[in-house]
Each structure stands twice: as C-alpha cells, then as structure tokens.
C-alpha cells in the first residue's frame, strides 16, 4: 500500500513538474521561447492555409453565374407546398370557433400581400394582365378580397397550392399549362365532397415561366392555385393529396413526398 502511495505521489509530482518545471522554467515541457517559436510557426502556417483557402474560395465564387446556379441536380422535380401552413400540415378548425382559424387567415393574408393589386402595379409592370389571376379569376371566393375569411367561417376553406420556384424551369410545352388535381386518399374519398379550383382547372399559367432568379426578377410572385372545399364532411379527418400534372416535369421519386405533390390533412369541426 505504502509503495503504491509513494508511486502515486511520484507520479503526481512528475505531472506537476511537466506542467510547470521551476528549474528550467518550462510550461508543459517547453520554455517560453520554445512556445513562442512554435506558436509563431503555427500562426504563419495557418495564416498561409487560410489565405490559400480564401483564395480558392474567391476563385470559385468568381466562376459562379449571378443569375443561374451552375448545377441544378437536385431540382428536377419542383416541390409543392400549401398555404396556409400549419405546424403539421394539418388544417383543423371549427367553423364556430373564430380563434381556431384566425391563424390561418393571418397566414394567408400575409402570404398574399405581395399579390395585392396595388403592390403588383408598383413593382411588376411588364407582364401580361393575367398576372393577378387570383384577384381577377377567383377573387370572389379565395382572394381574401371578397371573403375576408377565405370561407373558413362557413366550413368551406380555401387552400392555396404553390409550386416551388426553380430557375429556368419550363413546366409545360405545346402551350399546355401544368394543372393541379386534388383528391382524397382512398378511404376518405367519399368524405371530401366537391372541390372548386381557381383558376378553373387548376392551371399554373405558362406565362409566368420561366423564372430567372431573384436577382433578375426581384419581385417575382409565383402563380398559385386555390382549392376550395365546398362540402367536405364535418368532424372527420380527410387526407388530401394534390398533384401537379405536366408534360415536361418528371414525376418525383417515391422518397420525396413533396416533389410535384403535397399531402395534408383537413378536419372541419362544426362546434
């Protein structure tokens, strides 16, 4: 026992000596000059490396085009998304309870504010007048202009569907615009009721494409399709899937649940 204790003491004093050796003035086995030299060496070394890194990054950035990314390997099929966007892609509300859909209304209002007529006039002027299609084509129901509550208070909610922006994407050829179809998943097909698309047939008009990037089109607002559930069953979960159909876009892979389609759950309670 005593032997091991002695060893311990010896070991710890060795450590202490390694940490600070008062005889040679060595901290962690090096003198101040030695530390200075080695730190200077590493300072220069890393400065050179950082310089080389910065230089290569600079060269790399110079090769990039300001308007179009070099590659778009991942974006063959554009993603799709709905508005209003809840936490879980669930739109659950009660017609009678204002609070329950107030958030959706706010969400839609803020999302649609750039689509506002006056704002569009200020910022975008070169497009065909069709551009403000929501206001003109479907204004009465889902624009928020005629019905402030987008039908939520009546149990006929509007859902906006948007296709992700991808630079240079041509979503249709031979003057056929891509269009959105929504359907309930199998077991819910009798609950979904009638749907109304705005614009009619749910098309994304080709005149809004292609997109040239946020530098070229600073205030680009992408086209939307609105779907209104006219008489969906109440008090039940309805799983809805919306798909875009196009004659140029590849069908998305099975693994990406948001490529060219979007699924969400709708539940309208009457109380």
């Amino acid at each position, binding site marked *: 026992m005593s032997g091991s204790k002695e060893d311990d003491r010896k070991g710890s004093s060795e450590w202490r000596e390694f940490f600070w050796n008062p005889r040679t003035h060595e901290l962690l086995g090096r003198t101040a000059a030695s530390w200075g*030299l*080695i730190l200077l*060496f*590493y300072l220069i*070394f*890393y400065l050179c*490396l950082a310089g*080389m*890194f910065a230089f*290569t*990054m600079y060269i*790399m*950035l110079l090769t*990039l085009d300001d*308007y*179009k*990314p*070099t*590659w*778009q*390997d*991942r*974006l063959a099929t*554009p*993603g*799709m*998304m709905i508005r209003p966007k809840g*936490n*879980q*892609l669930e739109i659950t509300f009660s017609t009678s309870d204002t609070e329950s859909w107030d958030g959706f209304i706010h969400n839609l209002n803020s999302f649609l504010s750039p689509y506002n007529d006056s704002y569009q006039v200020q910022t975008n002027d070169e497009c065909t007048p069709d551009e403000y299609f929501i206001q003109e084509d479907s204004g009465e129901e889902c624009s928020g202009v005629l019905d402030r509550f987008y039908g939520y208070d009546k149990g006929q909610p509007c859902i906006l569907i*948007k296709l*992700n*922006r*991808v*630079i240079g994407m041509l979503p249709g050829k031979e003057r056929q615009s891509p269009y959105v179809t929504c359907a309930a998943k199998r077991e819910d097909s009798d609950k979904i009721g009638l749907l109304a698309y705005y614009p009619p047939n749910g098309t994304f008009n080709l005149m809004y494409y292609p*997109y040239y*990037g*946020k*530098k070229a089109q600073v205030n*680009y607002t992408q086209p939307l399709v609105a779907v209104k559930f006219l008489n969906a069953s109440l008090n039940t979960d309805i799983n809805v899937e919306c798909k875009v159909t196009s004659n140029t876009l590849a069908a998305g892979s099975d*693994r*990406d*649940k*948001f*490529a060219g389609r*979007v699924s969400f759950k709708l539940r309208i309670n009457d109380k």
Partner: protein
Amino acid sequence: IEELEMRYTTSVDKGLTSSFAREVLERDGLNELKPPKGTPEYVKFARQLAGGLQCLMWVAAVICFIAFGIELGRGNLTSFDDLYLAIVLITVVVVTGCFGYYQEFKSTNIIASFKNLVPQQALVIRDGQKNQINANELVVGDLVEIKGGDRVPADIRIITSQGCKVDNSSLTGESEPQTRSPECTHENPLETRNVAFFSTTCLEGVATGVIINTGDRTIIGRIASLASGVGNEKTPIAIEIEHFVDIIAGLAIFFGFTFFVVAMFIGYAFLEAMIFFMAIVVAYVPEGLLATVTVSFTSTITSVCSTSVICSDKTGTLTQNRMTVAHLWFDNHVHAADTTEDQSGQSFDQSSETWRSLARVAALCNRAIFKPDQEGIPIPKRIVVGDASETALLKFTELTVGNTMDYRNRFKKIVEVPFNSTNKFQLSIHELEDPLDLRYLLVMKGAPERILERCSTILVKGQELPLDEQWSESFQTAYMDLGGLGERVLGFCHLYLNEKEFPRGYQFETDDMNFPTSGLCFAGLISMIDPPRATVPDAVMKCRTAGIRVIMVTGDHPITAKAIAANVGIISEGSETVEDIAQRKRIPVEQVNKSEARACVISGGQLKDMSSDELDEALRNHPEMVFARTSPQQKLIIVESCQRLGSIVAVTGDGVNDSPALKKADIGVAMGIAGSDAAKNAADMILLDDNFASIVTGVEQGRLIFDNLKKSIAYTLTKNIPELTPYLVYITVSVPLPLGCITILFIELATDIFPSVSLAYEKAESDIMHLKPRNPRRDRLVNEALAVYSYFQIGAIQSYAGFTDYFTAMAQEGWFPLLCVGLRGQWEDVKLQDLQDSYGQEWTYSQRLYQEYTCYTVFFVSIEICQIADVLIRKTRRLSAFQQGFFRNRVLVSAIVFQLCLGNLLCYCPGMPNIFNFMPIRVQWWFVPVPFGILIFVYDEIRKLGVRRHPGSWWDQELYY
C-alpha cells in the same frame, strides 16, 4: 531401497495393495497436470471487447440506439442511419475483439501442450500382479515397469534396470540419450541417474521403479506451474500500442465532452448534444486502426525491434550442434582440420606416415556407423548411430581417408572393449589387412593423459621414438593448448601384437585383459569441437553495430563456452576477463581492477553464490558476458537481472525448463528444430532454422516493421482531423453537415485500410542496423511530433481541402458560403419544404437531404485525394519520396488504385444514395482537392529537406517524427 519401501509403504516386488493405492489416489488426486486456474475463456473474450477504444465505441453505439429509439418513439422517423451506425460500430468492436482473442488464444495454450505429454497407459504392479491401468490413476509408491518406446508415467526412482536409456529432451532440450540405472550418481535429482522423469521417453531397455512424484508435483509439473506463474509479460509492441490507444481514447473523450458542453451551452437539446458527442467519438477514433495493426503488424517479429540484449544458447544456436574434428596433433605439430559446414575450408598436410597410423586408429577404434542408404547425402549431413565424438571421428575419417566401412571390413575386428568411466579408454583388436601378416593390431583411444600413461613410444614421421621427458612435455603443451580452445581432446595409440605370443585364434578375454594394455605406441591427439555456425560471427558484429548486447548462456564447460564466445566475437579480440588480466600481470585475481576487464565468464556455481545486486553489478561492468554451466532456472535469474537494468531482453531456449525464462523475457525465442512444444508455446517467436543469425535478421525486420508501423499510424491518424472538423464547424457555425458518420466509417473501415496496410511493405529508408536500439521510455511508437504533425499540419490541410470542396459543391448548386452559415436550423427542418437558396430557388427537405449527401460524398472524395498524397509522403520520414522511388512498393501502388476504384464504386453505384448516403457527384469535384494534395506533398518534401539538411535544428526537432 528399504528406506524407499518404508517411505512409500510399498514393496519392491509386490507393489502397493490396490486398496491402499485407492486411498493414496484420493489423497493426491489424479496423476495429471492440472491446467492453471486461468481466466475463463468468456472473460478473456469480454476483456478484448472492453479496451479503451472499444468502450468508447460501445458508448457511441448505445447513444445511437437511444437516439434511434427516441426518434422511433416520437414517430417521426426520417432515416435508419442511427441504427446502421450502431450496428456497424458493434460489428467493428466484435470483429476486432475476435482478432485480439484469437491472437491471445494462440499465445496462451501453453498448458494444452503439456497435457499432450501425459502417457495413456502404464504397466503397474499391485498386489504382486502386473496390471495395465490408465496412467492418470497411478499414485506415489506404485511399482511400475517401463520399456523402450514408453513414456515415463510419473517421476520414478529406478530399482532395476537393463540397459535403460531415456530421452530427456522434453525436459531439458538435450536430445542425447541418457542411461538410467539404480545407482545414485548425484545429489541433485535432475542430474542423478536413478530417477526417470514424467513425460520423458524411454528409448531402449527395461526398468522397474517406484513412483516418487505424481501429477503437478513432478518436475515437469513444477515447471509448468512455474511457467504459468511467471505471467504473460507483454511484448514491447503491445505496450506501445496500448499506450497509444489510451492517449487516443483520452483525447476522444476530451474532445467529445468539450463539444458536448459547448453544444449544451449554445442551446442544443440534450439528445442532440449526446449525438454530437457520439459523432465526435466516431470521427476521432481510428476504428480501422486496431484491425489493421492486428492483421498486418502483430507478427511477433515486431516485438524484436527494441531488443537491446540477446541471451543466446550456445549449442545449436551459435554452433552447428555437431561435434567436428577441429585439430590434430601429430609429428609435434598442431594441424587444423576443416570445420566449416560445407567442407569448403583448407585441409592439412596428409603426407606424413604418422597421419596414416593415426587415421587407422581413428577409423578402427570406433563403434559408430552410418545408417544405411545414405550414399547420395553429403558426408556431414549423414545420420550416424553412435555418440557425438565417435560420430565426429567417423565423419572425419570418411572425409579424409574414404570409405570407412570398407576399411573396417578389411581390418577384421576380433574383440573390443567399449569405453567406460573407470578405465577411460576404448580399445579393439583387429586382424591386419595383409593376409600374410599374421600379427594382430591393438588400437586404443581415450582420455589423453590415460593414453599417454600406457605408451612407451611415440610415432614421429613414421618412426617409433622412445617417449622421453621432452616428448611428454610437448604432448602436455599441445594438450593444454587444445584444451584451452575449449575442445574435447582424445589420445590415440596402437600396438602390433607379437604373432608368437598371440597367434591366430588366440582367445582374447575382454574382462581380464589377457593382452598388453601398456607399452603402446602413441600416434597423436585429435580434438573436437562443436564449431560455430558460419553466419554467426557476422551476426554478432551486426548486433554490435546495432547496439545490441549478446550474452551467451550455456550449460557447457566455461572453457568451451569462452572459446566459442571468442570465436564468434561475443568476447571481442583484445578483451580480457579478470582471470586473463591476473595471468598476464601475474597477480592474484583479487587484486585485478574489475573495471579493466571487458569480458567476464561466470559459471553456474559462482552464479548461485551471487546476490542479485552482485549480478546486476557484473552485468553493468562487463559488456561482454558469458554464463557457463548454468541451469535453466538460472537463465531466468539472468533475464530478470537484465530487465532490472532496463534492457529489453530476447532469450533463446529449447527445453521445457526454459519456458519460464522464455515467458519472462520480453521476447522469448524458441528453437524450431530442437525446441520442445512447451518452449515453442512459451515463446513469442520461433526460429525455424535454430540459427542465431536469424534472430539478428529478425531484429532488422522488426525495426523495419516498427518504422513502418509508425508510418502507418501517422497515415491513419491524419484523416481523423478532416473527419472531426466538419462536426466542429457544424456545431459551432451551424452549416449543413458536411460529413456524415456512416461516410466516416467508410473511410475508416474501407477505403483507407489498404493503403495503411500497404505501408507495412515499405522498404527501409536507411541502414537501420546502424542505429541504437530504441529506448522504450523515450522513443515511443507514437510520439508528440508524429501526432502534432499529423493532426495540426497535414490534417489541417486536409480539412481545408474538404471544406473547399464542400463549399464549392454547395455554391455551385445554389447555396453560397455566407448563406450556409447559420442555416442548420432551417436546413434540417423536416417540415420546411420551400427553403430558398441564394438564387431564390425553393428546395424541399428531401432535396436538401440529397444535397447534404452530395456534400458528404464530396468531403469523402476530398479526404480520399488528400490521403493519396498522405500515403505518398508517409513512405519516408526523412528521405525524399523521389529518393525512395514511387513504384518500388507495388502493394502501395495497387492499394492506391484500389482505394480510387472503391471510392468510385461508392459514388456511382446505383442505390448508394439511399443505403449508404453516397451520391453520384460531378466529376469536377474530384479535382477541387487536388491542389491541396499537391500542397501536402510539396510541404512534406520541404519538411524532409529541412530535416535532412539541418539535423538537430529546431526544424528537425519539431517536425521529425
């Protein structure tokens, strides 16, 4: 014998009664060697799974499982990565453990071979009747009978014997048969003739005896327990690797814990911080290293590299292990015979008449014969039936005179008196070759002084001269000279018997010697020695230049030992022992200043009286040591003393009783040909040709492998930094993760394994046998300079390469570097399906995930490319890669090609993205890290240039590993 009967309550003719035997059996237990109470196998295996790194990997695997479980519980399972990772980690640990266990298993089955030595059946006399029973039921006091071919069933005191000879080689390693008879010849039980030992073999004859020891109490049992009691000393290389693994494990925990704390501080959730900890451990721990090291480097030869003392046997290791005629003395001259292994040396003048007579005596007075059907085999290699010196003489006459068998037939042997220890000569009487000459020829050989006593004349140049004082004196001088060379000297004489006194048909009686045995004519002396192997002196020289000390430990006579030592250079020219100095200065031994004597010969008897301090002192003072007449137990003492002086000791041995010393030594070397199984099992390495020179070759290769292991580890360590930095940057700057854990494991366990193994095949940079042996306390396998250079310089460059490629891939797909910073939260948000990149494009989560996989792959490719540069720079530590040559190590070239192919397979094989997170990347991204690879190469060339040009400078000290 009565006493024996009393002590064991037995009877020499009837044996024990069965009932009493049963009682004793119950008391003493079975007559077999008990395996030592070793650790159970599962504990050994478990220990392999619980090393420092292994524990870390277990922890990492558990964290993975927990993370997976929680994700599963929450129901938002995005991928099975965590599960994969856990399984891979566990597999790595288990597979490495199996390798280690197998290695350990091979080295510790020593007792198993002892078991095989136990005889199956024994003939025992009980109740006055002979019974065949299982040998393990024998008890002390049993009367047993052994005959030629049997294994001795226990330690037996011989009572009656008829020409019984035993082979003690399983015990002592000496294969010469030894007679066993009832007389007690020595006090030491090991030396006496009347005890036959357990597990030795009876070669010929019959004997009966009383069992005096059974089972573990037998001599061999005691040795077995001694060998297992010495404990398994770790080989130096094992200690090095453990040291290094401890440091790695410590650093991994340090890094992991630091960033765990940092992550918690920044505000990550506990689970996330745990996953960071796990990832850092996975990134930092070189998973593949242990497997690489076990597979390619733990050939035991590695352990020899640090040897600083070799304790070598003499017989068979330093010498050829066959008696050979070395010198002859006749005509008042000493003639040297050819002792080389292949008979390429000079022969002596054979024209003298005396030589003819001497050769005739040597050929005739010899009972040894060649085994038949060996015509095609060179004479020195033929197998001979007979003892060592007769064999030597037979081969000698066969070489010089020619067909000895035929020669003997021409001189028909009438009668012979074999050698015995009382008269110390051997004689035979022959008819002459010439049928007309009716005289008989008496030839005699034996101990020179005895032969001389019986001679009245001496042959000189064919003339018989009276043997006067003057001749006696010159005989004495020659005898002393040859004896001083450590040679065994025999005298030869002959006599023509008077045909009148001894006519044809005379009845020679060998018992009462009715013929003259004095007044003979002295022919000459022949001396024999077991000559050193041709390659040994060079090997000993090499050891000297390499700073390795060679100590001879032998059972032989001190004079012989010293002569051989001087012959092979263990005692160098001009070195003197204390006795030599005393003789030269003509002063008593006590007055000699001991420090003047470089050499020292210590016999076993002296060694017994020395304390361990005195032995240490002697070893310290005399660089050239020879231990003679030592017992195997003393070998252990010598080894321990050397180890106390801080040496790394290699020991050779062949007998069972060498196994404690072999185990105790840092490197035990067993003889492949002469060695017993127990010795081989106790040893770390086995010399296939029993040659000392092979040990030296082993040291040379060991040093090379040590160097190469260093290079391989440096290579393996380097990439841990570019594996670690992505995580650190990910945690601190919140960029999308540049490198995933599974990808890291692919680098560690697939692509980088082959180059690191191939470094084992690298040629030596310089003459490694001109360097001193490494000091195990100072020259570690992994030293500070190596780690610092690998981690903070090459590793840092590799990290920059990886990040350059990563940011390039991100930017070219639309994510500029500045946008990446801080992006982590949004990037990893599963619900965010329209995240905007720098161009305003919107990405779904899945698209971002595949982009992340692309980054993994790009980072992976960068590490690959840099590692190719790394393996090229690791080929040398000092020389320029151009001096070493790029293509001389074919294995390395093919490993690089293989690594590239594997990398391409991982990238472009369909299905990879979803299984292993590899994406087919743009070809351009393979070339982004190339400038950094070139930078690594150029930088290291500059480093090596500096190291070569300015040895000892600051640059050398800091940057040479």
